[in-house]
């Protein structure tokens, strides 16, 4: 497990470990709780991060656990905001409002992609 500010947990082996870090299209699933403050911040921070570092090569799916708790349970989401990066590398889960860009980039292995 990555022990960072955001406490990422990785699930090695679900995706090809050969996937090149920082390349390919990124798919994110962000679990939020309506418009609660951390959820709003997480949405904004993820959008900002994608437009800065992953322009044109990302997909974001927002799941509101207040409307769809079953999806959260299915994906083992315990708290919101939770970000699950599904592609292109192995699955990475980040907890928190994603305010620490440096830590988020490190967890997603995007450190080398700084503009």
């Amino acid at each position, binding site marked *: *497990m990555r022990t960072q*500010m*955001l*406490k*990422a*947990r990785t699930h090695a082996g679900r995706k090809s470990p050969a996937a090149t870090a920082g390349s390919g299209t990124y798919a994110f699933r962000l*679990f939020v*709780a309506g418009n*609660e*403050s*951390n*959820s709003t911040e997480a949405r904004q921070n993820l959008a900002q991060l994608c437009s800065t570092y992953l322009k044109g090569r990302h997909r974001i799916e927002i799941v509101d*656990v*207040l409307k769809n*708790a079953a999806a*959260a*349970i299915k994906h*083992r*989401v*315990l*708290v*919101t*905001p939770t970000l699950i990066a599904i592609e292109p590398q192995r699955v990475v889960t980040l*907890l*928190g*409002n994603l*305010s620490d860009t440096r830590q988020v980039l490190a967890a997603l292995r995007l450190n080398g992609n700084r503009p």
Partner: protein
Amino acid sequence: MSRRNPPARRPTTGTQDAEAVIHALRTNQVDAIVGDSHVMLVRLKQAETNLESSRDQLRALAARLESQRESERAQIAREIHDELGQTLTSLQLGLAWLAHTVTPTQPVRTKLASMSSLVSASIRSVRDVAVRLRPGVVDELGLVKTLRAEARAFRDNTGIPCRFETNLRNITFDREGSIGVFRIVQAALTNVARHARASRAVMTLMKRRDTLVVTVKDNGRGITSTQRAKPGSCGVIGMQERALALGGTLTLVGSRDKGTTLTVHIPLSRMLISGVAP
């Protein structure tokens, strides 16, 4: 007989996941906990923001009240000095005139001398009260010289030697900041005189990078944590509020062997400096 499916179970949460959740909760970055049958909202961050905002409002109110108190003090000081001071001076002159005019018999002369010395003492008291109410000396001399004078006055009034050290010269702080620091030092020295049972004290005013550090240290019996925590005790809250109003922090540490040390850190930018520090 139909075969019932086992109840759906949530995957077991590992220690690492639990640790990550606890960390996120601790840093107030969570706003909902997802349970098997319900979602519970956690509004810690909102509560913290509201609390911080209330604190800010209270601090702003305290600063405004303090500013009003300072101007009221200044007005009272002016009136005491001008009205009472003038009256006493006239009385003193009248007594001097009497001493030269009346028949110089011994009882009268003795009485006049005693009255004259009483009036002189009253004039000094009026002046002291006026100065304490309005540290006009801060305006005239600046903070450094005022604190040096305060250390001398403390020694003269209490008999406790008080050393003043500074690495500042040719520096002018803004009035509000100077009065804030002066009042903190004044309160700290009052505590030394009243509670510390000290035989010496040291006051310092130092520039450390971008911070102004003020300390008042004594070798007395040391403030205890109980005394420190007691509401309204030793004017600690007042000193703390003054430091906070200047964007600073205040710590008060007591030790039975080493006495009490009060330390205030204030960002220099909040003191609006002009002039050059060494």
